[in-house]
């Protein structure tokens, strides 16, 4: 269904005679940014690629050119693939509830008239907490001996579960903690998008006899499509980069049950000093994230609202 009331993006159709001159002047203004971008973004990316070809050590010392053997080691290293799978599994488990819960919460807060301010505050508040606080809260919830969750399990006569140490529950525990912590951001994006939908659309649909369910399906959700695309990309990238809450929930314990790829990069690079090898692994992740981001932009092309 095409929605005519949403303006199409306006293309710059002004004539371009003075363009060359203008862009050169603009370059000077962009130069500070470009310099910083080149120095802190392009250069580290290239030097990381460069050092992945060497046995560069954090502890200094002589380096030797290895060619692609860091990449060959990566292919053989089971820990790389285990932690990559953990990362992908976490992404698969966390992305749908993070997007859907964010949407649901936004619809709720948008609709609620009198309690709207409270819902907005309550839904967004966990996102404001630093990850260390979040990990502490959930660590006490998941504590197997006197944790809140096991107290609840005990009430129903169940046996205590080792939530973050048991292979069957560990990843779910991380997902739940992440959901509680970060869903507020998606909620905020959705809420902003909802508030951008003109009220007249709903009014006229209601006049035409559309039920609330129909309005949700045929007006709200289609108009949120672009936001959903954005939320999905941001969420997938954030989930693929998971590190801090897992690391803190395990108290830095390198247990391989939930270890994500970034933690393995950290361990190899910083506790094992193997910067070259860690660079090679991080290029694997970089590649995956780029592919995912491009695939997303292909599925949800920017600038189209139908």
């Amino acid at each position, binding site marked *: 269904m095409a929605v005519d009331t949403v303006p199409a993006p306006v293309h710059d159709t002004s004539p371009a005679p003075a363009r060359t001159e203008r862009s050169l002047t603009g370059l000077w203004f962009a130069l500070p940014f470009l310099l910083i971008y080149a120095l802190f973004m392009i250069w580290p990316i290239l030097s990381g690629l460069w050092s992945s070809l060497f*046995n560069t*050590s*954090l*502890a*200094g*010392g002589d380096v030797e050119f290895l060619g692609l053997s860091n990449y060959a080691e990566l292919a053989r290293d089971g*820990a790389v693939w285990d932690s990559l799978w953990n990362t992908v599994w976490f992404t698969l488990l966390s992305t749908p509830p993070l997007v859907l819960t964010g949407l649901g919460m936004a619809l709720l807060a948008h609709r609620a008239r009198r309690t709207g301010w409270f819902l907005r505050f309550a839904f967004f508040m966990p996102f404001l907490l630093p990850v260390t606080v979040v990990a502490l809260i959930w*660590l006490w919830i998941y*504590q*197997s*001996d*006197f944790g809140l969750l096991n107290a609840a399990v005990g009430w129903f006569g169940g046996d*205590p579960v*080792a939530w973050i*140490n*048991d*292979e069957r529950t560990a990843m779910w525990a991380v997902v739940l903690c992440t959901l509680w912590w970060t869903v507020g951001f998606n909620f905020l994006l959705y809420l902003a998008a909802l508030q951008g939908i003109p009220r007249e659309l709903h009014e006229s649909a209601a006049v035409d006899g559309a039920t609330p369910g129909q309005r949700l399906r045929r007006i709200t959700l289609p108009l949120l499509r672009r936001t959903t695309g954005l939320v999905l990309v941001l969420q997938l990238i954030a989930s693929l980069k998971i590190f801090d809450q897992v690391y803190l929930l*395990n*108290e*830095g*314990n*390198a*247990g*391989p049950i939930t270890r994500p790829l970034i933690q393995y990069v950290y*361990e190899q690079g*910083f*506790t*094992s*000093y*193997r910067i070259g090898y860690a660079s090679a692994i991080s290029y694997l992740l970089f590649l995956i994230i780029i592919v995912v981001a491009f695939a997303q932009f292909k599925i949800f092309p920017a600038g189209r609202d139908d």
Partner: protein
Amino acid sequence: MKRRQLLAGTAAVLGAAACGAPSGADRLRYWNLFGGGDGVRMVELVDAFAASRPDLDVQASTLAWGPPYYTKLSMAAAGGRAPDVAILHLARLPSFAPGRLLDPFPPELLAEAGITPENVLPEIWDRCVVDGQVYAIPLDTHPFVMYYNTDLCRRLGLTDANGTLVPLRGADDLVAAWSEAKKLTGGYGLVLDNFGISPWRLWWTLYRQLDGDLLTADATALVIDDAKALQALDFMRRLSVTDAVAPGQMLLSGAVALFGSGRAAFLFNGEWEVTTFQTQRTPFSMVPFPEVFPGTASPAGIARTQADCHTFVLPHQRDRTVAGTRPAVDYVRFMLEHSVDWAAGGHVPAWLPATRSPDYLALDPQSRYRDAATTAQLDPPAWFSGSASNMENPAGAAFGAVQSGTLTPEAGLARFKADMQRLIDTPAPV
């Protein structure tokens, strides 16, 4: 022109700030990782030293314990702009590439300060010396010990007339005592933690009591004795699963809280929690780690126990001079002389004159487990071993899973051996 001069001047200032002023005879920069109860004592000692040396500009930095600390220290040393003196766990010495990341102590300064081998336990001193040069000066030994609640143990009939714990030896006697204690507290008999590196500390203690070896001297091959390793793991499993006198899923903070509040009669931990329990007024005392497998290895009648040592090292500085190092050695000497103040926080002084002093012997319970230093079992020397190392973290995870019952002893051992083999096969980055 003026603007250009200004820019040049700014660049020079920035350059100087980035490089850090060269270490000199008038300043002392010191890094450590003492963030707990011992950190407060360390600050007091640093302040006392600074007060005694008004000629020195003393700057002490406390960084987060574990990998964050060691990462920063090695990066600073690799860049040659490290602090003048720093704390390092002795078992981590091989991972700091003596000669490249660490500078040796100038022998003439050590002689001048009277820091000589006969004032330190020989097995500790030997690990401080690499290629005939002294790279570390030990401050303390921190063994794994057993805390006990004096009230509960008295009610259990486990104390003598003086209120001292009767000697408990052997797996069965120990488990029986913990089992009785469990009935008394209604919680646990013994508490220990199953996360972090404590499971490694416990396993290494037990395995060394069985006289087991882990690595060849050059750390190129695993020489683990499976039967002994499993015997140790079986005992660990027995505590939390088979006999269930201890929790199988416990964080260190939880274990400390349970013991501190009297809901457990015994605690396995490092000795550094003394201040915590003194502050909480827990009726407690401490003994060296008990002999679980008697008759195997106890030179002084004290069982072998896992330990590490805090040492002072000289991180590499490109332009380190003997004169510039003098304040660092003065500081080390000051700390050794004040070892008893340091020992009040729990650690056993490495400086033997301090361990013989009446002030130290009067410290209770701190001096009760001092003999554990003589049977201290440091991690086997390797670039990947030592406190908070690549070996201790995965080992703690594998053995902790055995304690929690999620892995069988056989599976836990297999995982540990696979992790060890991977570390051995990794080309040493130092």
